[in-house]
């Protein structure tokens, strides 16, 4: 059936087209004059839409028929740049392309009338190029190339406002990310020299398995280098310091950084490392999974605890990301099939939930000027739609049914019981309680808090309390979409193309 959609000769080109799409968009956008809003928006939207369609067209072939479109170009002596579409790649690319489309719509609305849009959207497209490249990377070197590219192109996005504070944040971000990048580079060099060029393969690369039996010490050292480097981007404690400061970036950037791009690239790398480079069996025998599991557990709890202490909306969400992203690592390292599926499905679920919350935070900040949690009081009456979306996202984060978050946590819980580490269930419970403790007050403030205008001088705000404020459609529509996805993914979790089912499918492949 896929042969109807793509002639077989064209198949290998598909991943290249995917990467080239956003790259072309970027190249087209950079030289555009500031005022050509329309042309810019069109380029952005068309590229994003084509990409979503391409991914959708690939799903039946890759998941159903087991096709693996692959493209290879020589890059370094003995090593190719390889782009390959496998289910996990498609899973991550699907997430990023759908959220790219929505975030683009949101960003067009958000930046309306603000300066440097060409630069913003140019780098934004490059950022997506890097993300797609990361997801389709077929070996470690290709992964590394796009991983470093991501670091570079997100730097101007974090520094976008160009004031001292954002430059400082961008500098901190770059310091962390490059440090991690160098660790990954050293790990890749070492692994390539000891185990040969490493292609991603379900169940682990054969060269690495040999290395693990012949010299397990080296294999462990390399794993530490690689996982340590990727832990920076995935903000695992104590390498999470850059994430909360990077909150100075424009709202769509924060949304993208937290939901799909940077943090997810790190986590995706860890998933690839555990499942497709070392193979979960080999990694388990080497004994490297448990330390990672413990680090993830600490991050989950610590992130939630820090989130509880924050009074700014964006900072609270940032620490929430620190905590939530580590669920993925938790699932992948607990060494059970259900757990791996839980971790992978959270990769997508956390993405759509967190992007909803950041969209909402951006809306509250734009419309009401609300930056602190106390500013949210009474916002429910003035911005009912945004508040509803926020509530859905927050419930999802806590893990209440019928949201996507519930599905993830349920699956992770099943995995924990099934795994050698049942204590992880305790981590999940404690973390959910903490999640509730920091999200429920926000939700309460939204709907039941006395309006802030009673205490504040309303000169700083746009409208009077109680009267509904105008929620810009370009911002609201993507927000409602992702909130809808959050509900859908929870309600229809057992449909064959739902994230959960695909995650289970991938997980079966991982465990052979």
């Amino acid at each position: 059936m896929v042969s109807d959609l793509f002639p077989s000769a064209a198949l290998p080109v598909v991943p290249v087209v995917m990467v080239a799409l956003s790259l072309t968009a970027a190249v087209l956008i950079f030289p555009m004059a500031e005022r050509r809003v329309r042309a810019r928006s069109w380029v952005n939207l068309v590229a994003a839409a084509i990409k979503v369609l391409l991914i959708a067209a690939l799903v039946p072939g890759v998941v159903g028929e087991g096709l693996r479109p692959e493209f290879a170009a020589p890059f370094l002596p003995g090593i190719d740049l390889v782009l390959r579409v496998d289910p996990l790649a498609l899973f991550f690319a699907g997430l990023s392309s759908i959220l790219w489309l929505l975030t683009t719509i949101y960003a067009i609305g958000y930046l309306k009338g603000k300066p440097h849009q060409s630069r913003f959207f140019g780098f934004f497209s490059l950022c997506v190029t890097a993300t797609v490249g990361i997801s389709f990377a077929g070996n470690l070197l290709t992964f590394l190339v796009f991983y470093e590219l991501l670091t570079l192109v997100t730097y101007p996005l974090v520094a976008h406002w160009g004031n001292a504070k954002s430059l400082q944040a961008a500098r901190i971000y770059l310091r962390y990310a490059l440090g991690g990048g160098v660790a990954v580079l050293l790990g890749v060099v070492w692994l390539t020299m000891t185990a040969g060029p490493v292609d991603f393969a379900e169940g682990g690369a054969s060269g690495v398995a040999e290395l693990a039996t012949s010299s397990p010490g080296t294999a462990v050292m390399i794993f530490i280098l690689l996982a340590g480097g990727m832990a920076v981007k995935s903000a695992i404690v104590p390498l999470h310091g850059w994430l909360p400061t990077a909150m100075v970036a424009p709202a769509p950037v924060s949304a993208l950084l937290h939901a799909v791009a940077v943090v997810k690239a790190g986590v995706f790398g860890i998933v690839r490392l555990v499942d497709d480079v070392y193979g979960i069996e080999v990694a388990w025998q080497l004994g490297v999974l448990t330390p990672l599991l413990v680090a993830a557990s600490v991050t989950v709890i610590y992130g939630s605890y820090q989130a509880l202490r924050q009074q700014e909306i964006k900072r609270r969400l940032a620490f929430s990301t620190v905590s939530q992203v580590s669920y993925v690592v938790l699932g992948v390292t607990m060494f059970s099939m259900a757990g791996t599926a839980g971790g992978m499905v959270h990769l997508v679920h956390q993405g759509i939930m967190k992007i909803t919350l950041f969209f909402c935070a951006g809306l509250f900040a734009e419309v009401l000027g609300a930056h602190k949690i106390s500013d949210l009081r009474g916002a429910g009456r003035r911005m009912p739609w945004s508040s509803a979306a926020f509530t859905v996202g927050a419930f999802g984060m806590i893990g209440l049914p019928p949201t996507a978050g519930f599905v993830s946590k349920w699956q992770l819980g099943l995995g924990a019981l099934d795994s050698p580490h049942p204590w992880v269930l305790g981590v999940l419970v404690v973390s959910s309680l903490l999640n509730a403790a920091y999200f429920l007050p926000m939700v309460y403030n939204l709907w039941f808090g006395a309006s802030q205008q009673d205490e504040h001088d309303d000169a700083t705000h746009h409208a009077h309390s109680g009267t509904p404020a105008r929620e810009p459609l370009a911002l609201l529509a993507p927000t409602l979409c992702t909130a809808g996805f959050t509900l859908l993914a929870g309600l229809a979790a057992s449909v064959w193309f739902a994230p959960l089912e695909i995650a289970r499918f991938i997980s079966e492949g991982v465990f052979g």
Partner: protein
Amino acid sequence: MTAAELSLGAVVLAPLLAAALAAALPHTARRALGVGIAALVLLLTGLLAVQTVAGEVTELALGGYPAPLGIHLRADGLSVLFLGMTALVGAVVTVFAAASRHTHQAFWTLWLGCWAGLNAVFVSGDLFNTYVGLELVGLTAVALVALGGRGSWAPALRYLFIAVLGSLLLLVGVGLIVSVTGTLDVVQAAEVLAGRPDAAPAALLALTLITVGLCMKLALLPMHAWLVPAHASAPSAVSPLLSGLVIKAALFVLLRCWLWLTDSSGALSALAPLAWGLGAFGAAAVLIGSVMALRQSALKPLAAYSTVAQVGYWFVAFPLLLEEDAAEGAFIGIVALALGHGIAKAGLFLGAGYLKEAYGTDEIEQLRGAGRQHPYAVMGMSLGLVGLIGLPISLGFTGKWNIATAAVAAEHWWILVLLAAGTLLSAGYAVRALAPLLLQESPTPGEARISRNYRSVPGLCVIGLGALTLVTGFGGVLIAEALEVGAPW
């Protein structure tokens, strides 16, 4: 005579004749001549490259006299790679200079002469022509620095002293080789040396002299002090040529002597102390050069110190050239790093010079927000810095990858640590140089409306070099294949 043989001679003679012609032409005609010659050299180099990549070493004996008497030209893989890089960077800088209002009248004669010298060094088959070519490069380079006005004369003179001292050491080394082997031809000399183990001490002494002399021209660490003022005070169009191309000529000769002369002569193992000494100085250069770059407040000195650091990387890999299983990787790595540096540093210096011409200063603090007005120049500089840090996709990354894998193969772990430290430090000075340019304030406050400079040719030249930095990053395999042509092993 085939087209490739013809172009082998023409890449040297065309710019040389043009240099003489330029002195007689009016100023505007010089610009046209320069651009025309740039296009011609690019074309000729392309012809040569096609021939070489196909696996053939092009040779030409000028005037028909065979070695050792005649002028013998030879283009193997190494030659063609450096020729190609020089042609690309040279062409872009030529366009920049032709479009810039600040280009000095004498620039054209000197630059075309310098280009002829560079090409002569790269295609020379014997050490005599190499020496003459290097001298032509040195003399014109000193004169080019001196075009920068009063502030540049003292640095130019300092450069001149070092250049002459280095050349004399080189000359004595070459003389020693001639007196031992009776020939100037590199390949013939290597053959003679291979047959005479008793000549090894003399060869070692000669190679040491040559190495020290070339290291002066290359500004390896203890002898680096001349480079910073010379490269920083040179005119905008000159600094990229000095940092990107001129020092590469010395590196080329050094590689030629180390890998071709010593082939199988047994001298290679005796070179170990020298190689380790160079490696140690290289390591110090990487660290000290980067830290000094971090401490600069102006763009051009920062870029110059970055050159000092980058020179260090090449020498860090020298001990690897002696290890059997790592030599090839290290060689590829050094060449890739040097080529990548040529393009990336030229882009950085060209951007810095562009901004200096636009604002009258290269103090980073006073250029705050320059990126608003000159987006292409600043973006070109950023891409150049990407290459200098060694992030993918650039030749800097390819080079570091090759050196790192060679270091793992030879189990010299300190090189890995050094590469990592150098990468992070260079990222540090990259941010230091770039971040203020990206600020939203205007460097010329009071100017209400900022016009964005999208159309200026010099700006396009800068971003052109930036783009080349990335595009050439895909050439890693090509470089490895090209180096196989006429390789010493």
